């Protein structure tokens, strides 16, 4: 480039002409341009950072919202299916202690502690387990017996239980007697529940229950022998006649 005043050659870095000493207007303009470009650059850079920062922040917040919605949905679905989840958890817990449960159930059955057996089976929720299915029939029969025991004594002391009438109690007793005899029937679809060991226990259970009904409900033995196959209504008539309730 040339000096506009004397025409001598100048470099872009020369602020003043080395020959005439005047200011190098080209360099001055260049510096202004460079200043302008630099300011532009930094401004643009700041704007880009601000915009991209806002974008990242927005994406992060939207991701958090999406995550919260997803977790809430999963929890709602979980709450609606809590029984299935509990089922899975219980099965897992039972499987961890399977040997203990089998030993305990075998001991209770061998000791003919029928109430203890059904209590252990139900309070530990062992009905969730397929591995302990073989104890289901004897346990449920024992549960029927426990209900018959409980309702019988409520019936015999019904003056203390004003919230339940004798008719309701005999109806409940009859229901459980019918349920008991139904479960006693061999079920070919569940052979493991009716193995020789379990059938022997069920037979002892039947004899104990029939003795109980004979002694406490005063039902004659010949009437008790007809319970198997009778409807709950007919059983109720026999029970009411035996204990002296119902029509004379």
């Amino acid at each position, binding site marked *: 480039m040339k000096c506009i005043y004397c025409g001598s050659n100048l470099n872009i870095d020369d602020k003043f002409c080395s020959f005439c000493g005047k200011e190098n207007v080209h360099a001055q303009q260049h510096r202004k341009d460079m200043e302008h470009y630099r300011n532009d650059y930094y401004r643009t850079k700041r704007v880009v950072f601000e915009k991209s920062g806002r974008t990242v922040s*927005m994406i992060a*917040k*939207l991701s*958090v*919202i999406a995550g*919260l*919605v997803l*977790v*809430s949905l999963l*929890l*709602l679905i*979980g*709450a609606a299916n*809590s*029984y299935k*989840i*509990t089922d899975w*958890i219980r099965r897992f817990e039972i499987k961890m202690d399977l040997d203990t449960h089998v030993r305990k159930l075998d001991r209770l059955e061998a000791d003919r502690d029928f*109430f*203890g057996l*059904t*209590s*252990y089976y*139900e*309070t*530990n*929720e062992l009905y969730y387990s397929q591995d302990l299915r073989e104890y289901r029939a004897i346990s449920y029969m024992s549960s029927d017996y*426990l*209900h018959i*025991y*409980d309702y019988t*004594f*409520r019936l*015999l*002391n019904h003056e*203390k*239980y004003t919230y339940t009438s004798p008719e309701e109690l005999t109806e409940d007793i009859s229901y459980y007697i019918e349920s008991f005899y139904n479960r006693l029937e061999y079920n070919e679809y569940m052979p493991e529940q009716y193995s020789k060991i379990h059938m022997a226990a069920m037979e002892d259970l039947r004899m104990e229950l029939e*003795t*109980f009904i*004979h*002694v*406490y409900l005063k039902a004659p033995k010949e009437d008790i022998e007809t319970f198997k196959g009778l409807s709950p209504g007919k059983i109720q008539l026999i029970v009411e006649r035996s204990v002296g309730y119902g029509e004379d």
Partner: protein
Amino acid sequence: MVKINGDKLINTTIVVLCVFMLLCGIRFINNIKDSSFYYSQDADHYLWYISEGNYSELPYRMYQSKYNDNPSEDLRECIAVAKYYLNTSYYKMYEEVGNSAKAEEYLARMDENRRDIGDLSFTIAEINEELGVDVVNLLD
């Protein structure tokens, strides 16, 4: 026209969703807990029945409760009363049908329960009376 501040809206949405998620979590946990409906044994529960003289309900309540590995003194005594009622009812049953071997077995259990009854020993006479059993002389 009200200008909606986008950032404020998003932040509010996040807070609301957090609260909603917390409520969903609480509901989920409660549903899991409530699905198991057996009670743990509690002495006060038994003492209420004993105070009402409802001895016959004690065995059923005992068997409907989850077993307590480390019962308190009160609970042990209450369970002994429940077992005494149960064993006395079976003693009477086998006595009446003439099965003396079984009757003796339950008499021994009654004796064991009597020792565990402790401060609730007044229930023995009441249970015997309710069941129509006179075992005082047999046990002494």
